Structures are given as C-alpha cells and as structure tokens.
C-alpha cells in the first residue's frame, strides 16, 4: 500500500498475544472483521466457530454491554468515568454523572484514553539492563533497602492510599526522599497563593453565579482541574432560551488563541510579557478604590503596567465592568503566569467582593502541594552530588519532559541503582537499570481526589494485558515484603478498611466501587486574608520594560497535553481545536509577524537557545499576538512508539527552569526547508455566507429581534410531501452559543463508531474519516467561531437519489441510512452532499491493525471495508438498541433513553438529540427556540440537525 509510511498502518505486528484476551473479547472483534472476509457475494460465507465461556462469570451476558465506574487522574486531579465493557473488553469511556468533576461529560483525553490500553507499543515484560526479567526477581531485589538513600520520583498525587504508602515508606526507609514532578505543574499557582495568603491554595470557582469573567492566559474551558464543571457552569450562564434570559460576559487576554479565547466576547492578544503588565494595569484600576490596599502597591502596579499602556482603554472598560458586577465576577489566571500575577489576581477578586461568592479558596487535594518536594531541583542536586543510592521513577516520563538545563537523562546514571515504572520503552526507560511495565488505568485499582477533594475510586475493567503494575504495587515492594507484597486491590481494600473500620465495610466498599466516588469527602473551603505587604514586594520585582524581541510561548498541547498522549492515534489525528492542524505541532505566528519575518506556512524555522536547537515548521494562526511565537510541548517523542515517534518536534529542548513558559531570548533562523503539515481545514473565511452557514448576533440586537434567523433562513417552497413518518422522528439541535469547539465530541464519535485513522498523509490529501468535525470560521479580528458539522440527516437528502444501488436511503423514522455492505463506492453521494460530511474509505484502513488494536472496536458497529462510503448515523446502533430494549420491556422509548456519543461527551450540553415528533422532548423545544436555524436551508434539504445561532455579549464600551 502506498500508505505504508502512515504511522497507524506502520504499527508493528505483535509477537506474543495472550490467548485469554482473545477468549474474552476476540469473538466480537472477529465477528466484525469476518464481515470483511465476505467480500464477494459469489462465495459461501466461511464456516465459523463458537467459543462459549467454560465458566461464565455471573454478571456477564454475552452480547449485553456493562458499564463500570472508575476515575482518571491527570497531574493528581481525578475525573469520574463510566467505562463500557463487552465481555470484559473495555471499548468506550463516558463521564460519570454522579462525579463532581465530570457531571457526565468527558474531554478528548478521557475519550482517547481507552485506545492507549490497546497500544501495541506497550511494554510487555519486566526488564533488567534491557534483558527480560521476572517480577518476583525485581520485588525481592528491592525488599531490603531500609539502609539506602532511596529517592522516589512520582507524579503529583492526591491518592489517599498512595499518601499512606509514602508515609509508611518514610518510616521503613529513613533515607527515603520523595519528589513529585509534572512538566505542567501547578507550582506557580500554589506559590502565588502562598504569596498572597501564606499557604498554597487551590481556587474554586462558581461560574454559575458569574456575570463577568476575566480569564488571563487561562484556558478554563478546555483544560485544568475541574474544567468540565467550569465549562458546564459557563455554558449555563449564557444559554439563551428567550429574550429575557441574561447572559454572562467573557473577557480573555492571552497569547495564542485557545478554546476559551474563541468563546470570548472580547479578547486581547498579547505577548507573554504584556500579559503580566495588563494584569497589573487591571489591578491598578480595580484596587484604586480598595481601602486596605496600600498606596505604594498602586504605585508599584502602575510601574509594572507600563508595557501594556496601549491597552489602557480596554483595561479601563473591563475594570469598570468588573466593578459594576461586584460579587458576580470572576478573575482567573493561568498556571503559566508567575506567582506575583496569581497574587495580584487574588487581590482583585478580594477587592471585587467575589470571594465567598464566585471564588473560594481551599487546600489543594495534591499531596505536599507547593512544597519543595514538587520542585525537581532537589533531586537534580542530589543526583549531581552523587548522594543517591537508588532512584525509583514511578510513572511519568521525566527524562523526556524535565527542564532541558536539568539534563535528567545524564544524571539518572549517577544513581547507584534505578528503576522506572512506565507504559513503554520510552525516553526514561533507556538510562535505568530496572524497567517495570506500568498497568494502564483500565487495568488498575486505585483512588484519587477530584479538584474539590471528593475521593474517587479506580477499578480495573480487564486483567493486566502485559502483567503491568500500579505505582502503589511498586511502592508496596519497598515496604519490605518483596514478592509477597499485596496487589493493588488488596492494598486499596485494606487501606480503606483501616479508615472505615470493619463494621459495614463490605457494603461501603461495594457502593464506593460501584459509584466510583465517596460522598461528603470534598475538602472544605477556608476564609483567607491577603498579605498586602508581601504582594507589594512581589509586584515591585516585576519587570517594567517590555521585551522587544520576538517572544516564544511554550504551552501544554490541547491534544497530547504534556506528551503523555503522544502515542494516541485518535488524539494525533484530531485536528487542533483552534488551528485545525492535525498530527504535528508547529510554530504558530500571526500573519503580520510572518510577513515581518518573511516566512510562509510550512517553512521550517530553526529555534536555538543555550546551545540546543530544534527545527519546526511555521503555521499562520488566527488571533496570535503579533511579535509572539507559540509552540506546543509534548511532541517529537523518541523511544519505541508505534504511532507517535518523531511526530512533531520536541519543544522541551528549549524549556529551561528559568524560562519554562515564555522566553524572549531564543534565536530564530530560516532554514529554507519546507515541512508538509496536515491541515484539516484550509479555508476559514465565510465568503459572505453567514446567512447560509453561521448565524451570529449581539445580545442587544437579539433582544430587539429574537427571531432574526427566521427572516433570512427560509426553506424554498416544494411540491413534494415529506415522507409520512413513523411515531418517532429523530433529530438534533446544536447550540452554537455554548459550543466551545473543544472537540470532545469528535473523539467520542471516533471511539463509538470505529472511525479509522488515516495518518498524516491521509489528512493532508483530504481523506480524514471523522464523521463529526468541528469547523472554524473567522468573523473579524476577535472571533473564530466553532460549528460542529455532521450528517444533517436531511429529510430530502441530496445524497439519496443519486446513489445507483440504494446504499443510502431514508428510514421511516427520519434517519439518512448508510448501508456499508450495499455501497459500491461511486462517491456520487459525497459530490452531492452540500455539507461534505460523507467519508470515503480510500484504502482498507483497518486490515493492517494488530489483533490487540482490534480489541478497541465497538462490536455494535460494522468495521467498514475499503471502497465504501460512511458517515454519521446518529449513533443508530444506540437508537436500535434502546428501541429493542423498550420493546422487550413492552414500553415506549423515553426522551433521554438515547444519547448519541457526541451528545453524551459534550461538556456544555450544546448537543441535544431526541424525538422531534415528541412535543415534550427537549430537542423539540430547542429546535423551535427563536435562535434556531438550519445550515444551507435555502437548498431545500430540510436538515434534521438544526443549530441555535451564536449570541455574543459585547461590552457596549468596547463594541465598535
């Protein structure tokens, strides 16, 4: 195949494949692929076998999927999940509606996580010096370390069990030292709180009460602890269902355009250095009236604000708006900003009377947050000084993502012994003596705490495929039992029995595991008073002169985060929610800056700093601050990665402990080379087609004329009656007013519907397979709108009458059906689809994937063969299943019984699916809401998917 150079196709076949895996779930995956075997209609279907259980687990009914509660922690903050399992084979992740950090929603990382379980590059055995070894050998070798100076390097954790283990180890091994490292740690936020209040704190927001939100370099709608909740609250605060509804207002100041930036009513694109200044400027305005704020502070702020003077008008207007909404505003700042800025923002929230209303402070759930143990410097020092007997790196990938100037890769060798617990033979696995494969989340018992402290449980969906171990299990080894150390299940159970007490423990355990969380375990918030003096001192240290050189911003990537998802084909193929760039990372520049530098898209720049340099292609980015260059971390991975190896460039090479997020002293040189970038969308201009494609209006105008869409969005008269319908008529409504474009729906759809990955070349050639895509459209300088685009299920579908073999046609309940096994692949339907939502299998994208990777396939959905067309089916497998279920129970299908994958994942509840023939259904209500419109309505396609126009809430002072 010509696509042999495509990463997903290149995935290596597996040598040893565990038979019990096949028994558990293979029958189904194969069932789907057997379909592919029946290519020609002229041969008899091949004979098949049936392998029943020999001892059927009581809870399993073959063919009936079950959901289990678990939770996923990123940098220590847990999010509750429900995972779908087919005969013990996890295939799909949903949010846990009961969990305070999920509320039933998920993000792209939660959705993509299940794919990593079946990652062919996962390590398969314990290894010592590169040679396969046995777990027992490892465990026994590490049972007796009481005398040694053992340094543990963990990811930040909130797990009560792990904290307990750490405590016990500190007793057992006096020389033990613990370090916690995450490349995108929250240290600066905690230091900021310490600066203001004398102790590290997390801020908890209640956006449901917020009328005005100011986000300073903070992408709270798509990242950070509890972002799913913030997104929901923010959306609820601007979900307009009538003229009289009120709506919150969002101001954003940031460097590169983020999902939050695209949702803003007013956005200011600033270089990193200016962001600090702007915060000072705003604070100066806000604190002016504050009695207990010392006047010297205002002076210091004024000085620090000088680089942002040009934006004085903007700042003044925002400050006025915040002051006008005392107690109903929120000022929030990103983790990348220096502590002083965090402190300033705390002061602002206090001055605005937001504290105890929209803003609260609580101790972080993270163990030893803000303490020295969270700074890698300590470990680096000890290693350099040769004071480390043994180094245990449990989880994470520090050699890859530690600061370049700390050069951990070399230092690890200085420890007299070392072990690494990791997912695969990655960067960190190289220099260590022992390597232990890490169990995937879906193979692990464990616990953690949500952003609000709620204790959340993680339970395994499947036995470890490759004998992986959890961090807790390895820690237990160091307690001295060696190979006798308990497994994670026993550890967890024993710990919580100890906490809860034996009486009624089983019931408590059952319910906690079943629900995935423990009620009433949230960490209470605390009153705080700010130390003005310390704040002033810090502000005086802020630089008052603008950096004039081009400033480079390093940020966590929206898709691969800090690099931990860099081998996940779904997330790599997912176009960046803002730039629509798929697969690689690129140096984002504003158009103006590009002309200034004399570079074009895809030109390769060389960035060098302190003797390290990387070569990275350039991409013009909408809303990028002039004079700034933004580069995502997490790419350019090395090590044995089937998919992610050498995808993009490793920006950590430029990241130093002194300039971790922004740097004005990086040298740029043009190389004259070109690198082909896989851009999923090339045209962002609407070409004056607003009234056909994307309706948007200001709140003011909307209130004047709530039905403004109806006037322009009319369908032509027709001679034909629509098909006489069945009692149920499926339809969808998408609220563009609250859709942030976070793309969780895209990955959810991919996971639910076995959507194949086509690789960089495929996307470049315009052959991406996503059934649901998020289009981005420019509207002026400030706005970049998001529009989820999927099959509209037109009642008069242009695709249907052109298909020569009737492979796509209309069902009585209003679905535009696509029958893969009838399709001969003329592609006429795609030509005639005005929405271009139909996807074509130019190659067979699934026959090269390994048996392991096959296990992720959803057995309820056909795996498509090459040469056939496919598209969004409104998750028809869920519809039919619900109908059958209702039929068996002899009842009607209720509103909410059926939720499409995209709807279920959506953090803001922008997508609503249901029976439009049911007057009581929510979807019906929304479709008849005054903002409702249909895309390309004047073509007469009568789409079943309708949209709600986007309403912006601009500040009259700033609206021009």
């Amino acid at each position, binding site marked *: 195949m010509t696509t042999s150079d495509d990463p997903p196709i290149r995935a290596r076949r597996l040598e040893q494949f565990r038979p019990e895996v096949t028994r558990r779930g293979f029958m189904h995956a194969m069932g789907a692929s057997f379909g592919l075997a029946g290519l020609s209609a002229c041969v008899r279907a091949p004979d098949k076998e049936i392998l029943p*259980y020999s001892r059927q687990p009581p809870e399993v009914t073959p063919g009936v999927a079950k959901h289990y509660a678990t939770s996923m922690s990123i940098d220590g903050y847990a999010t509750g999940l429900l995972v779908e399992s087919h005969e013990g084979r996890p295939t799909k992740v949903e949010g846990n509606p009961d969990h305070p950090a999920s509320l039933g929603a998920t993000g792209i990382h939660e959705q993509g996580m299940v794919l990593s379980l079946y990652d062919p590059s996962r390590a398969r055995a314990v290894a010592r010096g590169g040679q396969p070894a046995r777990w027992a050998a490892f465990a026994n070798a590490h049972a007796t370390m009481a005398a040694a100076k053992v340094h543990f390097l963990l990811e930040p954790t909130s797990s009560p069990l792990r904290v307990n283990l750490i405590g016990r180890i500190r007793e057992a091994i006096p020389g033990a030292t613990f370090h916690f490292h995450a490349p995108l740690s929250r240290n600066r936020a905690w230091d900021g709180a310490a600066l203001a209040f004398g102790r590290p704190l997390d801020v908890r927001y209640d956006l449901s009460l917020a009328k005005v939100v100011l986000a300073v370099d903070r992408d709270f709608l798509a990242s950070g602890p509890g972002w799913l909740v913030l997104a929901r609250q923010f959306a609820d605060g601007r979900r307009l269902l009538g003229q009289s509804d009120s709506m919150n207002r969002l101001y954003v100041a940031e460097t590169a355009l983020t999902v939050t930036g695209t949702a803003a009513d007013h956005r200011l694109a600033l270089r990193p250095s200016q962001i600090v200044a702007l915060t000072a400027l705003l604070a100066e305005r806000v604190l002016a009236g504050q009695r207990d704020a010392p006047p010297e502070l205002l002076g210091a702020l004024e000085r620090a604000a000088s680089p942002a003077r040009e934006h004085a008008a903007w700042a003044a207007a925002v400050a006025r708006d915040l002051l006008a909404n005392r107690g109903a505003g929120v000022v929030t700042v990103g983790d990348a900003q220096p502590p002083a800025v965090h402190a300033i923002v705390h002061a602002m929230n206090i001055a605005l009377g937001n504290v105890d209303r929209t803003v609260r402070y609580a101790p972080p759930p993270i163990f030893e947050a803000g303490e020295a143990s969270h700074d890698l410097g300590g470990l680096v020092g000890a290693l350099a000084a040769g004071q480390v007997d043994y180094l245990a790196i449990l989880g994470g990938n520090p050699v890859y993502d530690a600061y370049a100037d700390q050069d951990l890769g070399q230092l690890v060798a200085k420890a007299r012994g070392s072990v690494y617990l990791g997912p695969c033979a990655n960067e960190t696995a190289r220099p260590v003596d022992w390597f232990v494969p890490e169990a995937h989340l879906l193979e692990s018992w464990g616990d953690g705490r949500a952003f609000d402290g709620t204790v959340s449980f993680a339970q395994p969906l499947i036995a470890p495929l490759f004998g992986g171990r959890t961090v807790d299990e390895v820690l237990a080894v160091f307690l001295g039992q060696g190979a006798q150390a308990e497994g994670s299940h026993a550890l967890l159970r024993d710990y919580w029995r100890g906490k809860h007490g034996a009486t009624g423990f089983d019931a408590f355990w059952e319910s906690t595991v079943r629900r995935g969380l423990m009620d009433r375990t949230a960490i209470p918030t605390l009153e705080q008073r700010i130390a003005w003096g310390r704040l002033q001192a810090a502000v005086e240290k802020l630089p008052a002169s603008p950096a004039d050189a081009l400033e480079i911003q390093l940020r966590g990537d929206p898709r691969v985060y800090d690099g931990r998802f860099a081998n996940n084909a779904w997330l790599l193929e997912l176009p960046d929610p803002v730039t629509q760039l798929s697969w690689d990372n690129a140096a984002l520049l504003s158009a103006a800056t590009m002309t200034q530098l004399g570079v074009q898209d895809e030109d390769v720049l060389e960035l060098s700093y302190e003797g390290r340099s990387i070569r990275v292609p350039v991409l013009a980015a909408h809303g990028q601050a002039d004079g700034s260059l933004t580069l995502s971390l997490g790419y350019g991975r090395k090590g044995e990665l089937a998919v992610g190896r050498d995808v993009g460039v490793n920006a950590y090479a430029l990241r130093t402990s002194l300039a971790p997020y922004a740097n004005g002293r990086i040298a740029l040189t043009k190389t004259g080379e070109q690198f082909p970038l896989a851009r999923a969308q090339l045209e962002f201009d609407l070409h004056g087609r607003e009234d056909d494609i994307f309706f948007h209006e200001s709140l003011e105008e909307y209130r004047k004329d709530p039905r403004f869409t109806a006037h322009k969005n009319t369908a032509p008269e027709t001679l034909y009656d629509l098909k006489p319908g069945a009692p149920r008529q499926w339809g969808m409504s998408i609220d563009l007013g609250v859709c942030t474009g976070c793309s969780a729906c895209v990955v959810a759809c991919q996971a639910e519907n076995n959507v194949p990955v086509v690789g960089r070349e495929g996307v470049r050639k315009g052959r991406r397979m996503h059934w649901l895509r998020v289009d981005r459209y420019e509207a002026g300088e400030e706005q970049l709108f998001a529009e989820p685009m999927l099959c509209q299920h037109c009642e008069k579908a242009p695709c249907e009458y052109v298909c020569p073999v009737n492979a796509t046609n209309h069902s009585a309940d209003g679905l535009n059906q696509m029958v893969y096994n009838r399709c001969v692949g003329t592609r006429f339907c795609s030509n005639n689809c005005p929405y271009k939502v139909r996807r074509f299998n130019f190659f067979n994208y699934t026959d090269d994937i390994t048996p392991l990777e096959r296990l992720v396939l959803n057995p309820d959905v056909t795996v498509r063969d090459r040469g056939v067309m496919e598209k969004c089916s409104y998750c028809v497998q869920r519809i039919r299943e619900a109908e059958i279920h209702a039929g068996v129970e002899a009842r009607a299908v209720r509103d909410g019984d059926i939720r499409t994958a995209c709807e279920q994942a959506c953090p803001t509840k922008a997508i609503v699916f249901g029976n439009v023939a049911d007057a009581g259904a929510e979807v019906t209500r929304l479709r008849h809401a005054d903002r409702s419109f249909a895309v390309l309505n004047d073509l007469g396609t009568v789409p079943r998917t309708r949209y709600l126009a986007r309403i912006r809430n601009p500040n009259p002072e700033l609206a021009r």
Partner: protein
Amino acid sequence: MQPVFPRWSNSIYRWTIAALLVGPASFIALLWVLARTPYYTGENAVRDQPVKFDHRHHVRDDGIDCLYCHSGAKTSAYAGVPPASLCMNCHSQIWTDSPELSLVRTSFYTDTPIRWNRVNAVPDFVFFNHSIHVAKGVGCVTCHGRVDEMGLVFQARRLSMGWCLDCHRAPEKFLRPPDQVTSMEWVPAGPQIELGRRLKKTLAVNPSVECTGCHR
C-alpha cells in the same frame, strides 16, 4: 475459385450464433439458481460437533426448555451456547464418567472453551437480536426448525435477507403467543392469520424494514 470452407461449416455458424444468444442468458440463470440452492444458503448442511450433543434426547426425552441452555435469547442479542459449567449442573451428577462428556469435563476443570462449530449464521453485516424476537412471539422453531428432532443440529431455513423480509413484512403469518415461543409442537387453534393479526396488535409488533434495523 474453390470454396475456402466445406459446406458443413454453414451449420457450425448457425450453431455458434445460437450459442452466443443462449450462452450468456443461461449462465446468468445458473448463478440466479445457485444463489438459492442449499449449497449456497447452507440449508440442511449437518456440521459435526466436538461433543456429540443430541437435542432429541435433551429436548424431547428430558423436556429441557430451550431457554435453560440458551438463556441469552430472552435478554440479549445472542441466544448463546451454554458454558461447560451449565452442562456440569447435571452431568456432575449423571453420566459423570461417560467418555462422550470427557471434553465437557476437561473444559470445565481446565477452564478452556469447547470449540463448537457454528450452525446458524445470518449473513455478514447483520446485527440480529434474539431478545426482541422472543419477546414479540417469534417461535424458536420458526427459524431453527424442529431442533427436537435433530441429532446433530443443521440450519433449517434459508436465513437470507429475502427470507427475513418475508416475515418482517408480514409477521402475522408467523407470530405465536409469547408463552408458546419455545414450544416445538405448538400449532394455532384457529387460522394463523387471525391469531397473528391479534398478536400483532396486542404485542405491538412492528418489525423494522429499515436497512438500519439490521445493518449498522
């Protein structure tokens, strides 16, 4: 000038022309027929099984209900082949050392599945669901035939798409009271059509004839 060809070549021509006309037509007809033969549909093809399980004995003699072993049929898409553990419910008591059952015992004690040969398979790309059919009064015998008279089970019906549609378009011809679903001998008291119409109404039987009813 002497002729290039002998006289009889004329008749050769005539035959050739005839063949050109008839040949393709009959070839197409052949395929048309082939697709309907048991060879192609797999009807009546008895498949050997690792364990000589005899439905005649278990169903007729012992009167075990279909759903005792194929319990999935009530609740799941798959009727399911019983796990060895289920066989052992009885066979840990009776025929405990029968050589016929050795494979079942090994399967149970070594926890390795028995590899049965699949008999009834709907065409590829079909998502068939047993539970709804059982709930709506489609008898086992309607699609599987008189299993109680089969030594080794064979596919009793065509199981082609056209065959499915015969019933989905006119279910009343086949419906029976839900409590008679597993019965092998049941026959309608009165005319089937009237009973079928009544059941269709009372059970709200409304079978899907949409593509996505079976192809997803």
